Structures are given as C-alpha cells and as structure tokens.
C-alpha cells in the first residue's frame, strides 16, 4: 500500500507514525557558530570530509570540489579537522 492509499483509510494515529525524512524540516544550520569553507585548490579529493560529516550535508560537485549545505551544517568542524590537505577552514561567514 502506498502512503496515499493509507491516508484514504485513516490518518496515522497522533504521535505514533511519522513520515520518512521529515526531519528535514528542522534546519540545523543555525546551531553552528562557525561553518566550513573549502579551498578547492588544496583539496586532494580523498573524500574524507564527505564521508565523515555526521549530518551528511557535504556533497561532491566534481573532481576535488566539495561544499556544505549550510542549512544543515552544525559547524562541528569534523570535516576541517579530518581533512588531510587542510583544505577546509571554519569561519563565521555563514552564520
């Protein structure tokens, strides 16, 4: 059964059933004080930053070009700390 069929029958009981991915309404960007910015020239394309981001909000654009989604980035700085090429700097510019 699909979501729409189900709702034709009865709405999810309050508090029990939640729609998938609905967390995305919660923009966690403002949690951070500093956010990462990339120096693509330094990037060696190891992909570490993308893999380790706990929010999953870093994407790979093309070869050695990464960027964060500041709507969700909590500014933990893990990407910057883990970048072997020191290609990421934490700044307040996306606050």
């Amino acid at each position, binding site marked *: 059964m699909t979501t729409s069929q189900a709702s034709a029958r009865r709405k999810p009981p309050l*508090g029990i059933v*939640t*729609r*998938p*991915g*609905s*967390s*995305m*309404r*919660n*923009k*966690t960007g403002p*949690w*951070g004080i500093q956010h990462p910015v990339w120096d693509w020239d330094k990037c060696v394309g190891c992909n*570490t930053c993308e*893999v*380790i*981001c*706990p*929010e*999953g*909000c870093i*994407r790979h*654009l093309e070869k050695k070009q990464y*960027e964060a*989604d500041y*709507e*969700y980035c*909590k*500014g*933990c*700085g*893990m990407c*910057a*700390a*883990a970048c072997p090429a020191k290609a990421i700097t*934490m700044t307040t510019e996306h606050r």
Partner: protein
Amino acid sequence: MATQPFTYELSRGFLPGHRACAGCGQAAAVRMIMEVVGPDCVVTNATGCLEVFSTPYPESAWGVPWIHSLFENAASVAAGIEAALRKQGRLETTRVLAFGGDGATVDIGFGALSGMMERGHDILYVCYDNEAYMNTGVQRSGSTPFAASTTTSPAGRASFGEDRPKKNLPAICAAHGIPYVATASVSFFADLKRKVRKALGIRGPKYLQVHVPCPPGWGYPEKDTVEIGKLAVECGLFPLVEWEDGEVTRVRKIKKVPVEEYLKPQRRFRHLFRTEEGKAKLADIQALADANIEKYGLVD
C-alpha cells in the same frame, strides 16, 4: 558561487535535520552504515541517543522503514520482522538491521540479543558503542572503560571512576558461534564500510560493534571525534577484530601509541592525571591495552 540546491533522496536511509549533538560520532557512523545498506531494509532501534535524535515526533531522519519499541528489545523486534519477511519470501532481498547503543546492547538488551543469536535469525545487529548511557546523561554501562568517570561511576575521594574493565561483548557474541562478529570504528570508515558489506553478504546473525566517540559524554572538542576514535584503536584499547564462526579471522594492526595520548584529551579520564593513584591506574589501563595487543596480535 551559484550552485544547484541540495537534494536528499529518502534512499540514503538517514537524512539531515536530526538532532544529534554537533560532532556526534554515532550519527556519522549510522550515516556511513546506511549508505552501504541501501534502501531495501527494515531497521529496528533501541532507545538511546540515536532513537531520540532521529525521531522526535513529528520528525524522522529515516528514509527507510524504521521501528522503535523499547530500550531492551531491538533484537526481539528485529527477530519478529525477520520471521515475517521470511514467511513472505522477502528475506532474499530485504535486509533486517537492529541498532542499539552500548547500554541497550551490552546491558539491558543482551538477553534479547543472545536469544536472537541463539535462534539464528538473519539479522545484522549494530551496537554503536559510545561507552556509556549518553541519552540519559552519561551513566556507566557494561561497556564503559576502566577508570572512566561517569555520572554513576564518578571519580571522587573514594573512587577513581569505573572499577570494572570494559565488557568484551564482541568476544561474548563470537562465543555464540554466529557466522560473523566484528568491531569497527567510525574513524576507520573504509574498514567500517567493508565490514558492513561483508556482514550483509552473510546469512544468519551478525554482530557489529562500532566505536563512536561522543564529544559531550567523553569531554573533548567536537571537531576531534575522528582523531579520538583513531587513538582508541591505535593504542590498543579498542582493537578492530573480525570473528567468523567463533574464531578470530582478521585484525587490524596498530601503531601502539601510549594510552595516555588517547586518555589525556578526554574529561572523563582527567582525574587520572591529577593524583598518584590516578597515575597508577594509567599503568593498569596500559596493561589492558597490552593484553589486547597480546591477545589479538595487534602489533607485528
């Protein structure tokens, strides 16, 4: 820099907007795991940080079917789901996962997990091990390491913190004779992903214990999650080991850094560096690491 808007597919399994603390090792690990697992799965989840930060009503960070019932029964719920999928003939493709914290796994839920393993269900059980009950405020669990200060094993005039060594649950699961048991760390992500892939290829019960540092619970700056996790492995306190059918089949060799390097940056071990008694405990901890090194042959 006018780029395309970000898009997130439900098929990622685990989506942004969850409420984990910044720098949460657990959130990073779950993301990595779900990427390997893919969308065709059903997830059960014990109470703990993961459940709470990923599903505060009416929000859910999950893109795959997910169910929570209690703190202690993720393995049993998974077993019921597995049986239902088996009956429906869907077990060939759909994977069943159970996630539990160390408290849920090593302590209160271990009876259910042990039963699930004994009965041979085709389930991948993942224990994310942040070495205490974090969701309720950093109480000790069976998985809390020796001498760590937690809110129920606090350091104090008459106490140097937790007085029992970390329970070796992976070895205990291996003693159940199940086909696959492994330890992994969020900081060794290629290794972690390989183990998840390997586990998914095996039928029967699989147990994976992933070490996930926790900035507020352990007391270190949130950016250092990966580094702290690395040190835990490299000093020998959290060895990365694989067991198949009860026998150790592979270990990750380590650099053997002194345990102090791992302990020092963490508030939970701070008291050890302040007194003579603490320093004696440091030697005990080094001995625990050395025992692991010896037992699993972590150094060539």
